[in-house]
C-alpha cells in the first residue's frame, strides 16, 4: 500500500511496484484521485487525517505500508496549518491503523534529512544517530522530527513489524516539482549575502529505487539517502545559468513576505536556514546496511535537472564558455574560434 499516491513520487512508485513481478497487489491511497498514471495499482480514496485510513487498511489488508504523505512545503497543503495536520495527525492516524492491523508486516517511511535542521552549530556530516534536539526548530523541520518520533514509538510498540525510515536529501530531477526545483528556475535567484551553503541531492529515480528496495526487501533501520558529492549554491546557480541576487537575509518578514506575496518564492524558516547554512549527511550506512548505490551523484542530479528545466538562463554555460574561448584566443594570440 502506497500512501500519498496522488503526489508525483507516490504515483511513480505505485506504478513501478505494480510492474514488479515480486509484488502481487499495489493499492494507492490519497484524498484526491491521482492525475498521473499509476499503472496496475488500485486507487482507494481515503483521508489520512481521519479514521478512513484505518478502514482502508482493514479492508485491503496490506502487508507493507509505504508512507509518502509527508509534505515539505506549505503551499502543497494549502497553508501551514493543513500541512501540519496532514503531516502529524496523518502520520498518527496511519500508524494507529497499522498498529491495529494484523496484516501489516513492514512500514517504510519517506522522511527527509530536514530532521537534522541546519545551522552554525551543525557538524559537517550528520549520521543517522545524531538528531540534535537543542536547535530551535519550526515549520517542516519540526513536523519531520515529530513524524519520526511517532514512527519510532510505533516500532517500539510493534517490534514484530519491520520499520524502515529513509531520510532523503533534497530530491531533484527532470520532472519533479519541489520548493527547491522551483527556486532554481527563478529568472534571478535570491540568495543570502555572504553565504554559500553546500548541499546534497538525490535524483528522483534514485529516490524511487531506494523506496522500492526498502519495500521489496527487508531492511529495517534508519538510513540517510543522498547522491555522492556536494554542490555549493553559487556553483549550482552557475551550472543552471541563473544570476544570483544577494539579499541580507531571506528570513525577515519583510523580505520573505515580499517574495511570498509577489509569488516569487514561498520559503519557510527551515528552507531559509537550509539556504543559509547548508547541510551534509553521512551515507556510509546507506551503502553498507541498506545496500543501495545511487546511480546519480549530486552533480549529475543537478545537471539532469538543469538540462530539463533551466534552459536559456541569463548566464547560460555555453555562452560563458564561448566568451571564455574567445578571450583565451585573444589573450594567447591564437584565433578564437575553437568552439
Amino acid at each position, binding site marked *: 500500500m502506497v500512501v500519498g499516491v496522488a503526489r508525483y513520487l507516490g504515483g511513480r512508485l505505485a506504478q513501478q511496484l505494480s510492474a514488479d513481478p515480486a509484488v502481487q497487489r499495489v493499492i494507492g491511497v490519497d484524498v484526491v484521485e491521482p492525475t498521473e498514471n499509476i499503472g496496475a495499482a488500485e486507487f482507494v480514496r481515503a483521508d489520512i487525517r481521519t479514521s478512513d485510513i484505518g478502514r482502508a487498511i482493514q479492508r485491503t489488508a496490506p502487508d507493507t505500508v509505504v508512507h509518502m504523505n509527508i509534505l515539505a512545503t506549505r503551499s502543497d497543503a494549502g497553508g501551514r496549518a493543513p500541512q501540519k495536520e496532514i503531516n502529524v495527525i496523518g502520520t498518527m492516524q496511519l500508524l494507529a491503523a497499522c498498529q491495529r492491523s494484523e496484516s501489516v508486516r513492514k512500514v517504510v517511511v519517506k522522511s527527509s534529512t530536514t530532521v537534522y535542521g541546519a545551522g552554525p552549530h551543525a557538524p559537517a556530516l550528520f*549520521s543517522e544517530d545524531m538528531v540534535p534536539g537543542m536547535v530551535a526548530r519550526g515549520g517542516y523541520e519540526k513536523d519531520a522530527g515529530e513524524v519520526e518520533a511517532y514512527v519510532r514509538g510505533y516500532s517500539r510498540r510493534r517490534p514484530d513489524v519491520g520499520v524502515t525510515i529513509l531520510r532523503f536529501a533534497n530530491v531533484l530531477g527532470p520532472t519533479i516539482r519541489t520548493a527547491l526545483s522551483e527556486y532554481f528556475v527563478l529568472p534571478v535567484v535570491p540568495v543570502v549575502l555572504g553565504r554559500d551553503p*553546500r548541499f546534497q541531492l538525490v535524483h528522483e529515480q534514485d529516490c524511487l529505487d531506494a523506496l522500492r528496495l526498502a519495500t521489496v526487501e527487508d531492511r529495517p533501520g534508519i538510513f540517510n539517502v543522498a547522491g555522492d558529492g556536494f554542490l555549493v549554491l553559487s556553483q549550482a546557480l552557475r551550472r543552471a545559468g541563473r544570476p544570483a541576487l544577494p539579499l541580507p537575509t531571506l528570513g525577515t518578514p519583510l523580505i520573505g513576505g515580499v517574495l511570498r506575496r509577489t509569488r516569487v518564492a514561498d520559503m519557510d524558516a527551515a528552507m531559509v536556514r537550509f539556504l543559509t547554512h547548508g547541510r*551534509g549527511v553521512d551515507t556510509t550506512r546507506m551503502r553498507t546496511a541498506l545496500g543501495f548505490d545511487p546511480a546519480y551523484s549530486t552533480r549529475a542530479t543537478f545537471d539532469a535537472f538543469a538540462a530539463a528545466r533551466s534552459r536559456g538562463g541569463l548566464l547560460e554555460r555555453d555562452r*560563458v564558455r564561448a566568451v571564455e574561448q574567445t578571450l583565451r*584566443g585573444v*589573450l594567447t594570440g591564437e584565433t578564437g574560434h575553437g568552439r
Partner: protein
Amino acid sequence: MADDPQTTGALDRVAVTLGRALRDRLGVDGAQLDRLVEFLGRRLTGDFEVDAFGFDPELTETVLLPVLRPLYRRWFRVEVRGIENIPDTGPALVAANHSGTIPVDSLMTQLAVHDEHPRHRHLRTLGATLVFQLPVVSDLARKGGSTLACNEDVEALLDTGELVGVWPEGFKGVGKPFSERYKLQRFGRGGFVSAALRSGTPIVPCSIVGAEEIYPLIGNADYLARLLGLPYFPITPTFPWLGPLGLVPLPSKWLIEFGEPIRTDQYPPGTADDPMVVFELTDQVRDTIQRTLVELRELRGPAFG
C-alpha cells in the same frame, strides 16, 4: 558574430593584435593569462569540486592563499621550523597556541604548512561556532578548508587521512590582554586529545611566536561585545581610534615551530574516555608548546626587529 569568413578573419587579426598589445602592456606571458581565463571560466560555469566540509582546493590555491602570501612573506616574515614533523601522508592533529585578537595565526599556519611542506598539504583548521555564524567569514572559512570544532567533524577529517589544525585555547587565547602574552590559557576539555586517541592519530604541538604583537589588546569594551554578541570587543592602540586603518596588523616578526609528534596509538582502545590519560596528554602538549614559546621568543629577539 558574422559567419562570413572574410569578416571573421579581419576580426581575428584585430583581436590578436589587441591581445598582443595588452599582454605587452601588462608584462605577463600568454600561458599565465590563458590559465587565468580558464580558471575564471571554470568558476563561472560551476566546474569545480567541493568536499563534504565545503573545502574548495582550487579556490584556496588560486585565490585565498595567494592573497595571504604577501602578509606571510613580507609583513610578518614568517620563519618555519620543524616542518619535517608533519607527516607526508595520513592524518595528524596539529595543536597550536592561539593569540592576536583576530585569529590571523591560524591562516598563517595554514599557509606555512602549504608552502613549506614538500607535499604542500592543506591544513584543515577548526573554527568556533562564531566563525560559522558570520556571513562572508563562514563562506570563506568553509571554502578554505575550515570546519566547526566539534568531535564529529574532527573524527570525520582524521578518518579520511587529513591534516587537522586545532587551537585548543579558543577565545581565551585570541582575546587575552597583551599583558598576558605568551602565557598559555586552559586547553578546554581536551576534546582534541580524545579525538586523536580515538583514531590513534599523532599530535603535533605547534608554537607560534609573533601573533601576540599584531593587535595588542589593551582593553575590552564589554558592553559593546555583549550588544554585538561577540566574545570580546577589542581595543588596541590603533583600533577603533584609527577606524579601518586600525585593522592593519603591526608588522611583528613571526616564528612557527612544529614539534615532535606525540604518539597516541599505543594506548588500549577506550582510552579516549579515560579523563586521566586525556588530561595527561593535554598537559604534555601544553607544556611542550609553552616551553618552545619561551625558547622561540629568546631566539627571535625584539618583536619588531
